[in-house]
């Protein structure tokens, strides 16, 4: 499977509240609350770190999760967040993400 890169969409509103990230998607005014693992992915979505590295470096280091399961869950989550315009997802590094 090809490498996945993820970047935060600059158009969304986001703020951390009590360990969870609140995100408002400007596209449809939908409000999301990301749990702690999803928040960790969101915060690490710099456009240049591959998702697999985020999972091993962040999730598996900070939370007690199985790497293969974590990567599968992360891919699902990322697809959902992309659908709502919260994350940009690409097979190449996203250079204008910062």
């Amino acid at each position, binding site marked *: 499977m090809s490498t996945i890169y993820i970047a935060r969409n600059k158009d969304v*509103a*986001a*703020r951390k509240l*009590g360990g969870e990230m609140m995100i*408002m998607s*400007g596209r449809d005014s939908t*409000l*999301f609350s990301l749990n702690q693992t999803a928040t960790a992915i969101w915060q690490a979505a710099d456009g240049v770190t591959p998702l697999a590295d985020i999972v091993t470096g962040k999730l598996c280091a900070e939370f007690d999760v199985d790497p293969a399961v974590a990567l599968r869950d992360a891919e699902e989550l990322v697809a959902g967040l992309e659908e709502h315009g919260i994350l940009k997802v690409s097979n190449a590094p996203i250079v204008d993400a910062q």
Partner: protein
Amino acid sequence: MTQLIREMSNTAQRLGVPLGVQLDLTYRCNERCVHCYLDHDDHGEMNTAEIKDLLDQMAEAGVFFLTLSGGEILMRRDFFEIAQHARSLMFCLKLKTNAVMIHKAEADRIKALAPESVQISVYSHRPEVHDAISKLPGSFKRSLAGARLLAERGVKVIFANVLMRNNFQDYTGVQELAAEFGAQYTVDPTITPMMDGDRSILNLGIGQTELQQVFRDPSLLGTSPEEFCDLPKGPLAEEDAMEMLPCSAGHTFCYISPYGDVYPCVQFPLPTGNLRTTKFIDIWKHSPQMNEVRSITVNDLPVCSTCSHNSGTCARCPGLAYMEGNMRGPSSLDCEKSYTRTGVVIAGMMAHPKAKPAAGLEQIHLASNENVVNFR
């Protein structure tokens, strides 16, 4: 979504986080609306650097919902610099404007700010009625042109319709106009007193008969008139009243004037500190006035705690009560509204002290709530 917002508010409340702030950037305005009492001169607005620093402080404090309002926000030449800074800090941005100064270039720049919504005041579907209220000839045409440019760009537009005697009959026309623009519609059926307690502008407001009509129009209520006007179910039991907080003012929300004064709410002119001398977070956390507002539960309200309307049919506004002289007292405007809504006599109508303005008030701008219908 409502459930999620409720959970977020509870968490913010528990953690002492100011989840929402309305920041008025200026009181200057290009319109002179009949129900607006603002002194439109600039008496020392915060400058660009001060506001950007404030935005940094607010982001740090956890503010998520940020409403930029006025006066007219576009009267500030640095508006886009300020708003872009707010965007870079990832606030959920709401803008309130009369849209008169929005042309193609401004519409593009507003679109680029990705605001959650842009609320535009529309008083009537008839140009002459709207312009007579805004007192700016041609403003209806210009406001709608601005609204259209935003809507065409996919920006969420909300038409805010304040109801007064001279435009009451037009609200269905404004609703139709909103539908035509693909805009949302919000109505505010009540005029509230000036911040110095002066109640003279209340004469512009609609009467009981019209208010009854509003309370029985399903298109405005979001629920059935039967449910909305049902008999009150209170008073709350003592233990519930102990828990119940009057509203978000000072708990998860506050208001900031163009001069850096911080208040519990746009409609609650109790000065709690000034940003030119004190950091935002210090005012929020340590101002004695903020903490006093926070300490009040329904149980502490001598009249309202015994009122059958306190369990839902009345959302008493402590800011209005404060303007009448006692933040723990009833608000006569809310008593009248609850009476009109249910026909049931109210504790506050018998026990209400004669309205006396609170001393030493400073002018702040009054704006309608975010709800679809601002019935408080």
